[in-house]
């Protein structure tokens, strides 16, 4: 009986693996198909011959978007993390009166539906001339990324002992020097979490991207949506482009998944 349960458990686990990987399977085999083999009826069949034609065809259309997304995601992740570190440090270890009241207010910003700020945001960005290029998009991602990065660092710094900060004070360090010499050196793990989370977030965003950029500056998600929505675009190219768009974040996930997970859990406000 026990053995049957154990076997059953693994069967169930593997069944779900199939469920979760099934779309990946479809994406990969379709992307690798020769144009002639691509057909609706033969969707589930493995390619007879592996062809990189899809990738070759679609990369030129995607290249710009790819570069734009890199130019977007990297600065966003670095700057958000730095600001989040400063905020998180102050809110946990150098509190001011009302800090515990301000924090939930910041946190709420993480959960708001972007629709409720979209109109004024677009208005403002276009008024100050930041609409169309990447600058406005970068700025917006940094700003709306402040709540989650602040949360990540605040949780992290809460875990370090207060005595460490006290020791720095008695040794003669003020807030800034304590932050720079004591807090930052022990913060790399939190940086990893914040940067990876923000990178993924910025890379995968669509709504802000489509609202704030013009064709030349489309991030990859917008370029991808255009390719996929286009008429008569062969499936293998569509799948290839989707695959290409996912590569960076998947790579980050596979190599640095540990930090990704911590970012995930931070968002659940586990005290």
């Amino acid at each position, binding site marked *: 009986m026990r053995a049957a349960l154990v076997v059953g458990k693994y069967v169930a686990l593997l069944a779900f693996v199939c469920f979760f990987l099934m779309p990946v399977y479809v994406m990969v085999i379709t992307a690798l198909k020769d144009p002639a083999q691509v057909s609706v009826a033969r969707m589930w069949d493995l390619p007879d011959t592996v062809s990189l034609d899809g990738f070759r065809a679609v990369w030129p259309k995607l290249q710009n978007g790819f570069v734009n997304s890199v130019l977007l995601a990297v600065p966003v992740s670095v700057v958000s993390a730095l600001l989040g570190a400063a905020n998180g440090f102050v809110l946990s270890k150098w509190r001011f009166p009302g800090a515990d009241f301000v924090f939930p207010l910041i946190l709420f910003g993480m959960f708001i539906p972007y629709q409720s700020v979209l109109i004024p945001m677009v208005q403002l960005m276009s008024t100050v001339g930041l609409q169309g290029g990447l600058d406005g998009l970068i700025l917006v991602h940094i700003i709306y990324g402040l709540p989650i990065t602040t949360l990540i660092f605040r949780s992290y710094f809460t875990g370090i002992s207060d005595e460490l900060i006290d020791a720095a004070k008695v040794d*003669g360090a003020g807030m800034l020097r304590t932050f720079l010499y004591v807090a930052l050196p022990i913060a790399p793990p939190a940086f990893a979490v914040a940067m990876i989370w923000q990178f993924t977030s910025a890379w995968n965003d669509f709504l802000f991207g489509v609202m704030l950029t013009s064709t030349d500056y489309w991030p990859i998600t917008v370029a991808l949506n255009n390719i996929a929505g286009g008429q008569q675009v062969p499936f293998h190219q569509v799948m290839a482009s989707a695959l290409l768009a996912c590569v960076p974040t998947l790579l980050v996930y596979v190599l640095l998944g540990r930090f990704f997970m911590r970012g995930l859990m931070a968002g659940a406000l586990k005290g």
Partner: protein
Amino acid sequence: MAGIRLERVTKRFRGGVVAVRDVDLDVAPGEFMVLVGPSGCGKSTLLRMIAGLEPVSGGRIFLGEKDVTDHLPQERDVAMVFQSYALYPRMSVRRNLGFGLRMRRTARVERERRVAEVASVLGLEHLLDRRPGALSGGQRQRVAMGRAIVREPKAFLMDEPLSNLDAKLRVSMRAQLSLLHQRLGTTTVYVTHDQVEAMTLGQRVAVLRDGTLQQYDTPQNLFRHPVNLFVAAFIGSPAMNFVHAAVSGGAVSFAGTRLPAPSALSDVDRRVVLGIRPTGFSPSADNGWPTLEVVPEIVEELGDERYVIFELDAPRVDTEAVHAALEAQSADDALLLPENRARFTVRLPADVPVSVGEPLRLAVNPERLYAFDQDTGAALS
């Protein structure tokens, strides 16, 4: 070298909790002063106020002649050793030691000289490039001390620095601390909850309870002349024995025994709490001391001596002062089984024959009887 003076220092937390109430203390320059009391008595808060880590609600703090009450910790010239050592984890021992000097913008040459000197005094030379994570507990403790010493501050503040060490190590470290103080002569305020540590280390000891200073005196005076029931119960291990008694006509009686009353109570007629230390008894001898016969219930062997515990036909002394001294929340906390009778512990040399259940005659030193007011706990003799 600077002394520390506290004038009516008070700390009130939000929510109304008064952690420290009107404390007056005067630490002489170069003195080793210990703040002791049960947990929650305010000793750590007081220490933190001296360091500047906790703002003061009332009163003033003087470091030497300077009024530092409103100064930030960075502006005072004190060094602190924390219970958890609080070593900067990503800095080498060398940089940990030098951090305070760096913050005060001491010239690099001077800084390196001092760090090297302290490292050699504390035996840390071979550890200078290691990180705290690669050190043992004892080594970390030395680095924490070194960090304080290298600053050559006006005073050392120590917050239970030995609490994290195991018992035997603690005892040897105590001696090291005394040696260090003799060498350096820096004014030191040392906080502990362990009254043994307080007695062995302090030149003067301040006993605190619930934020109020109970008595501030040399260890000997605290032991021999406690000013109230709390101090009497707190200082000394095993704790002083107490029993409710009646004084009348120059004698004090309890549980069917009569002993001559302390001279201060010779003309008085009242009820008191009588206290006798475990060392206030001796095996019955012809020295004219009053005796009493007891039946030992428990005998604890310690090698050279033994503790003999017996019951008295009198109710247990149940006052708050006694609980607080034992760090018990309520009467029940100190007991495994409910009981109502007073129990005395007596320390006897091991060569006196004692066995459980066999009646034993003990002599009581009449000079070593203490009497306390039943309500206020104030000492009456």
